[in-house]
């Protein structure tokens, strides 16, 4: 299985350990993983701000770097959602369509494609509040949401519950948006921060020691709020937990 690793730009720059954990985790499951060096970004920051035309360059780079792989896996639901649903600045050739269809978010790739359930190397003896990003929840449908009736399920939870020693706490509003929202975090700074503070307080009140998420951008925002508030809570990406990080 030829898998390409997609490391979103802000993870490359700020959270290399998340990229490393993703790579090692995929290798643990026997994937032959390439990291195409000629990658930059999926184009989302521009397109989400309305500047779809400005996203064309990044999308072209993405489509070129990831051509020819069976699977393209990235540890970020919002980037993957952009590639799947909004990657429209380019001409939709067969090759572009193939790259879009082959792009997976890490949790769904582990859960759906690899069928991974056992993580014998992983142990995380902490009380954890799980934060699913809105992209993972409402766009990639990785878990059920409270406003929609139907069977309750959660792919990230189905993976994490096999980690030794982990304990989950339930915040009052588990699927409320944390307020990152890309450029929203700065154009609507006041609202964004208030949402982030509310999210942190909800997890702390539930007794969480860690907030775990598959989306580092949500965590970057929440961590920024938490540190400024001097809240006693830490943050870690799901790839690190599943790859055996202890803290």
């Amino acid at each position, binding site marked *: 299985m030829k898998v390409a690793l997609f490391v979103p730009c802000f993870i490359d720059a700020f*959270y290399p350990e998340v990229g490393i954990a993703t790579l090692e985790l995929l290798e643990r499951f026997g994937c032959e993983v390439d990291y*195409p060096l000629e990658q930059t970004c999926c184009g989302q920051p521009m397109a989400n701000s309305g500047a779809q035309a400005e*996203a064309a360059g990044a999308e072209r780079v993405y489509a070129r770097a990831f051509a020819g792989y069976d699977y393209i896996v990235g540890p970020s639901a919002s980037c993957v959602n952009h590639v799947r649903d909004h990657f429209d600045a380019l001409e939709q050739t067969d090759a572009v369509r193939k790259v879009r269809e082959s792009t997976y978010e890490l949790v769904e790739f582990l859960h759906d494609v690899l069928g991974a359930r056992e993580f014998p190397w992983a142990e995380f003896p902490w009380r954890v509040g799980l934060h699913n990003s809105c992209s993972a929840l*409402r766009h990639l449908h990785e878990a059920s949401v409270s406003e929609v009736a139907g069977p309750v399920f959660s792919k990230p939870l189905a993976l994490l519950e096999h980690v030794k020693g982990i304990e989950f706490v339930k915040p009052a509003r588990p699927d409320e948006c944390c307020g990152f929202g890309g450029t929203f975090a700065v154009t*609507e*700074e*006041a*609202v964004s921060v208030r*949402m982030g503070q509310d999210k942190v307080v909800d997890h702390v009140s539930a007794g969480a020691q860690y907030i775990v998420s598959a989306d580092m951008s949500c965590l970057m925002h929440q961590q920024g709020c938490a540190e400024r508030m001097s809240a006693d809570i830490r943050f870690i990406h799901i790839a690190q937990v599943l790859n055996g990080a202890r803290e």
Partner: protein
Amino acid sequence: MKRVEHAKLAGAFLSRPEHVAFHDKRLWDLRSKRDAQAHAIPEWEMLRTLASQIKSHTLSHLADYLDQFTRMAESNGVQVHFADTAEEHNETVYRILSERGMTALVKSKSMLTDECEMRAWLESRGISVMETDLGERIQQLDKQPPSHIVVPAVHKLRDDVAEVFGRTIGTDPHNNDIHYLAESQRMNTRPWFVREKTAGMTGCNFAVAETGTVVVCTNEGNADLSANVPPLHIVSMGIEKLIPRVSDLGVFVRMLSRSALGSPITQYTSHFRAPRPGAEMHFVLVDNGRSERLAMPEFWYSLKCIRCGACMNTCPVYRRSGGLSYGSTYAGPIGAIINPTFDLKRFSALPFASTLNGSCTNVCPVKINIHEQIYQWRQVIAAQHELPFVKQEVLKMAGRLLGSPTLYRGTVASLEGALRRLPNFMLYNPLNIWGKQRDLPHVPHTTFHAWYRKNRKGGGDGGS
């Protein structure tokens, strides 16, 4: 008109933490009740699909249904008027009133009359207007527009209402007991229903084409008083309110109050078909940009809206910024997609007042793809150069940089301490905005890219 600066207005609302906390909690409570009601109906999702299809069908045959509705209403003895614009609506209402020597209008809640800014228009021509919905009346007395389409004064605490009533209708400003306040408002309003030379007005939730009937759903009984006591009843309604048959009504009535307030049904669901003997009934059907919206391939779907407010209650941004920050009758997610059709420049900030989280789309009883339309509006606004200049330039720069691996890596590598500058282009704004109330990410020793080149020889072959 001037651009509505949502972020700034939201900031003002957020500077009153008690109000924000109450507002958020109150509306989240409505959302939770809505969830309980919706989840108790096994066929809920089917109802949403059905409602959406009925609206699609009606909107794509709107001229025919308007024609049928008009014929039926006229044969019932109702006088039907069409108004192209807000001004025409106001003029029509004024003409009906003045020709009959009316000097006052008692009315129930209607978003359309707010959209048309009818109250000020009539009052400047000597007609007194009395809002009889409690929330709407509070807002009228405080000289503020409604902040929510279902609960117009939800942004106020009971102390605020006591203050407004004390200042305007002479109650004790220190008595914030809700029963006292509600009763005072009722006593203040009631005499108007039986006043001479006074007409009544209601809005319309649904207009049934096959019978020419107007259906009004309320909780306070004030619409029934407005319609049934005065000798003249004027209904102000948008042309998108039509549904084909009485049997279609069941689909919408089951969902309206469940979506809005989390109650199975409103206290009153009143059907108005014909004037009482000796009385008059007038329907004013308003376009005001609706047919233009109907012709927009990406955005016509928003005409399905039944004004339940569920998208506002669920919206985490709306709950923390308050309805007045949207600068329009229609706030929240639905406002973000409707308002730009009225005035793109004025409302160009609203589609950016969203995290695109998508819960609005999930709760919409007629399945409007709200968050997708918000995304589309952003594209339209950028294409028409309505983005702020700095944002436009930074996005261009980011696009160029991220469009070239060499330029991107070169930029990262060539600048000492370049990582500290990254948020500048990734988030396009000066760091201090991020850092005002949030700490910055801890900058690591290396990028993933550099780590990979060092630890995994050569890196991938790029798949080519």
